[in-house]
């Protein structure tokens, strides 16, 4: 009996000190578990393989039914500048304030890793989102499948995006009232008004 109580107490002490050590580790060793960190290569490879596997073959094998016309590209670009650029950046680099603080981070979509994915897979990510990541599902947001396919047309254009196009997109990015106010104030100042 004594032995039993003794080992029970020992177990409690061990558990408590283990929990305390773990908490200390989380707090101090890593200054908290930050989403700013870069996932390790193993973790990234595993997660990418799993989310890729989660796209049904029927979706993966779909080819883009929307032809890559200048009009489709432009619509995709407008939509992207409005809904996607906050995280992915107009140029697709993922170098944005929000993107940099995410775990996993939005990838540079101009690179092979994204561009070699099938149209269907990219479409699948846009429609369904990516679980346990910041990537939202856009299906059911009131848009049609066509809109997502036009986004795929635009994603394919990212590696060739010109500086002029990127600049044009800046005017399509959503702006907060304070940014709009500041823009107006600066324009007034440049036009010779008082400040």
């Amino acid at each position: 009996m004594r032995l039993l109580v003794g080992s029970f107490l020992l177990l409690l002490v061990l558990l408590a000190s283990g929990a305390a050590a773990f908490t200390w580790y989380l707090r101090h060793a890593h200054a908290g578990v930050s989403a700013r960190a870069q996932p390790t290569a193993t973790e990234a490879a595993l997660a990418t393989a799993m989310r890729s596997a989660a796209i049904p073959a029927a979706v993966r094998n779909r080819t883009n039914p929307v032809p890559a016309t200048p009009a489709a590209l432009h619509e995709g670009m407008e939509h992207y500048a409005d809904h996607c650029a906050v995280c992915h950046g107009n140029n697709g680099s993922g170098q944005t304030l929000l993107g940099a603080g995410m775990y996993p981070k939005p990838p540079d979509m101009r690179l092979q890793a994204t561009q070699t994915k099938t149209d269907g897979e990219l479409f699948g990510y846009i429609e369904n989102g990516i679980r346990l990541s910041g990537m939202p599902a856009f299906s059911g947001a009131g848009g049609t499948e066509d809109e997502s396919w036009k986004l795929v047309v635009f994603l394919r254009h990212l590696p060739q995006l010109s500086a002029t196009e990127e600049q044009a997109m800046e005017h399509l990015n959503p702006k907060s009232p304070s940014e709009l106010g500041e823009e107006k104030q600066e324009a007034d100042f440049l036009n010779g008004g008082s400040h």
Partner: protein
Amino acid sequence: MKRLLLSLSLLASPMAALAHGGLTHVMGTVAAISPTEVDVNTTDGKLAKVVTEGSTKWMKGPSSITEAGVHTGDRVVIHAKPVNGKLVAVEVAVGTASH
């Protein structure tokens, strides 16, 4: 209370050098200009030194201009990125009004 004072003072602080999207906005008149630097008397009464580079865009209204089109006394709005404690101009917009 401290918080309140802080937010009030932030609200009241001059709008000349607001930073967002990673870029600092410098608004004022050109005090001096050289091939590598624009010094600006900001609207809140400070002197801001901004480094310019080959990649700096120079704009007057909707048109691109060159640095030669910017003179002492011109009104400018500069969007600059902080690099190693210096401000490096991404875009310099110069006033459209004559003076």
